[in-house]
């Protein structure tokens, strides 16, 4: 028994040891294929989950890799504090699109995160009804008339009131304030994710069932559901920029989207820092890349397609 066990461990040990020696000594593919990595350095871009973000981040990544020779890691993680913490810890260097209207302040004050200017995209948040409703009830898009239709939106989950589907957790949302300030006969349901809203809008339009929910542009759902923009319910023009101080009476303001970088990248003076600071494009630019990705193209290919079509803009970003 003992010798058998002993011999078994011996074979195991020998194999493991030689595997390690082998991997340490043998000439590896690495040496033969090691690419020309330039003087740019190693950096990590945060990849937030929505498609628009992917489009922007991928374009920056491709330019950095191909034009500047940087080593870029793309790390999927949640937006907001999660990412700022990672930037503080030194594992993330770039957030290419942040909607958070100043939620990063604490990290900026501490010197861990640096604002790197606007990325040119403008976020427009609002409450939208399914487009078929906007057509059938033209006056529903005025917030004053919402109560008239509240009973249509009743579901098993809304406690006798209309169901009001609020945005995902990381987004700027003031639905509870809007409902109470405007005395709307609605109950706020926290949809919890983009997926839940996509599901809600898509089914409502397909089955012609009533639905009112939170939506934002640029968002690829607008490409998938025709006329969704016509469902925008208008509240009086906005009177706030900080969600904590919003009265709830008025609509969401337009949000210019912000780039954030780590202190490390800001201090580095590398060509990548220049690229990120200069990067700017329009909602249409982002939508075209995002739509390609949505249509089944790989993010790398979609980004490259846009880069090939806009050489001058890319040159301006990298400062050449």
């Amino acid at each position, binding site marked *: 028994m003992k010798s058998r066990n002993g011999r078994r461990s011996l074979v195991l040990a020998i194999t493991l040891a030689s595997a390690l020696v082998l*991997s340490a000594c*043998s000439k590896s593919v690495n040496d033969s294929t090691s690419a020309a990595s330039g003087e740019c350095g190693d950096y990590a871009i945060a990849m937030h989950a929505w498609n628009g973000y992917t489009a922007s981040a991928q374009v920056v990544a491709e330019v950095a890799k191909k034009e500047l020779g940087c080593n870029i890691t793309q790390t999927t993680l949640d937006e907001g504090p999660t990412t700022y913490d990672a930037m503080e810890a030194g594992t993330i260097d770039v957030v290419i699109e942040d909607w958070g209207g100043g939620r990063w302040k604490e990290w900026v004050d501490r010197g861990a995160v640096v604002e790197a200017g606007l990325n040119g995209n403008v976020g427009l948040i609002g409450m939208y009804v399914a487009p078929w409703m906007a057509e059938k009830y033209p006056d529903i898009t005025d917030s004053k008339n919402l109560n008239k239709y509240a009973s249509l939106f009743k579901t098993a989950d809304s406690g006798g009131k209309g169901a009001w589907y609020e945005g995902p*957790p990381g987004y700027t949302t003031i639905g*509870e304030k809007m409902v*109470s300030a405007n005395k709307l006969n609605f109950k706020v349901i926290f949809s919890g994710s983009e997926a839940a809203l996509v599901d809600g809008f898509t089914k409502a339009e397909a089955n012609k069932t009533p639905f009112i929910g939170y939506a934002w542009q640029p968002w690829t759902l607008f490409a998938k559901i025709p006329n969704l923009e016509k469902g925008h319910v208008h509240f009086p023009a906005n009177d706030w920029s900080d969600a904590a101080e919003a009265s709830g009476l008025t609509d969401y303001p337009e949000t210019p989207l912000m780039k954030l970088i780590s202190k490390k990248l800001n201090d580095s003076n590398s060509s990548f820092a220049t690229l990120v600071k200069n990067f700017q494009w329009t909602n249409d630019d982002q939508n075209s890349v995002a739509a390609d990705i949505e249509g089944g193209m790989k993010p790398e290919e979609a980004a490259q397609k846009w880069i090939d079509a806009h050489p001058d803009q890319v040159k301006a970003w990298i400062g050449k």
Partner: protein
Amino acid sequence: MHLRKSHLLLGLITIWIALAKLLHGKNTLQIDTYENTSFTSYVGKMALELRGNRTESTAFIYFFNPIRTFIDGFVQTIRNLIAVPAANSQIPTIGWFGVVGLIGFFVYATSQWRTAILSIALLLGCGALGMWQFTMDSIAMTLASVILSLAIGIPLGIWAGLSDRVLKFLTPFLDLAQILPTLVYMAPIALVFMIGAASATIATMIYAIPISIRITSHAIRTLNQSPVEASKSLGSTKKQTLTKVQLPMAKQMIVLGINQTVMAAVSFVVIAALIGAPGLGKPVVSALIIRNVGQGFVAGFAVVFLAILLDRSTSAAAKKQVSYIQPSEKTLRNRRIAKISLGIGALISVYLSRTMLWAAVWPSELSIAKQVEVFTNDATNWALKNLYFLTVGFKDFISYSVLNPLESLLAGSPWYLTVGMVVAVALVIAELRIAILAFALSMIIVLSGLWYESMITLTQTIVGTLLTMMVGIALGIWTGRNDRLEKILKPFLDAGQTLPAFVYLVPMLGLFGPTRFTAIATGIVYSIPIVVKIVCEGIRAVPHSLVEAATASGSTTYQIITKVQLPAAKRTILLAVNQGLIYVLAVVVIGGFVGSGGLGYLVIVGNSKPELQGKGLIAGLCILLLGVIFDRIMQSSARRS
């Protein structure tokens, strides 16, 4: 006695409903989701300070940060070996071909041919699903957390096995860790260790260590004592008795403990992605966010493959020790030759994976991911289109007939009524001690300011548990009485236990929309396998003589089930209810991602909105308190029955 108890309960519930009608909507303690109480904003402020202190305070510099650095480094080393290229390289140290060769060899060396071939097939399956690197990341993460868990769990388990005092001290922590829903402790851990591999590893360890402690101490305690006595009487020291007698005898059971630890770590693979774990969890979670059922399933299949691979290879190693028949010289020699040649093969594959590009990086042509994704998406879309009205009808039926009335009973009535009634129920079905505990814990929830949200979550948990028990007990009885059915169901139950709930959260969303019922349905699917297993065991444990006596006296099958098997298995069934409830609770909270609100949503929103961080942390605490209250009441009532 039994009759009185049920009458008392019935009376209590009647009074409860009447009072709830009378006092409806008063003192419900409901506050806006985005509103803080002074307590939660205080906790939020503390959390902010903690974040700010991470680079300055001594506790961080000398304790937490070194731990984080060590674990990060440990995980990174393993990842560099098989999963990701180290700095300045293009491929990991061992490419895919080498990994397949090595794993095949190791599994063969520790168990047998069939398991080795199965393992290789499963690994190739993960690669074909386009998930090679994610799978390797998950293996690396699992390996790291299992090694660290065992390094802590086995010594502690041995100690608890030898000393009653240690066991007594550890037991409450072990119990707590079993109740604790995983979503709950991730935020506090991430607060201290930051998002990343270290936090994910530590979270996994918290889940896995108690299991290895439990099984190891159990292994030592249940040993046949005569050899131990003999060794003692022969004058061996304690250390000699432990290393020469107790440990070798308990070895098989300890290996089983390793298997269970591995499985615990695997079940964490997906949810750990929420706090930055590399691996298969990432595609699963991102599929949820962008609502791509196909992508979620592709990654989910890879998780299941990985789980089967790790389960079979470790449990085969455990079983192998059992064989008492000495194999013949010839088979031994054959095996040795096979082992050595396989070992050489593994070495060659490692060598190839370092020198040939095709063996280093999984060739993207060898992928059926797109097809699987498209197929699942099509199938789901078909199901959604054609079943939607059915499922919505069912959802509405349950919502109006059970969910809403119960919610208005628990959440819509004054807090003191609900607390009072919970305590009264505890008094009737459990012990006084437990009723006092239930009162104290409920009051903590009340004082925390999250009473209303807690009752919303509790409602969903209870409805989920009721539905689970209806299906679970029926299936459990059926499988308990029918061997063939058990054989057919077993793989499904096993898969159901390993398939992460996140994977089917999206299809559930498709079937039921962004509603509370989506969370409930997910909880049901997740908890049915464990309930069926426990009930089935309970039914099988009923002495044959009882059943035969009833059959002989001419009872019908129905009578045998209701008069003999169910009463005899009552205790096990109560435990199954408890287990089912804890499982449903753990999953109902992730329903916060799909519109079910309640405590789960608060935990999630606390992670992404700094101003609600305190509320999120407290919500986590409330989930735990709910779990403890119910676990204690059910355990005690099972003891008393």
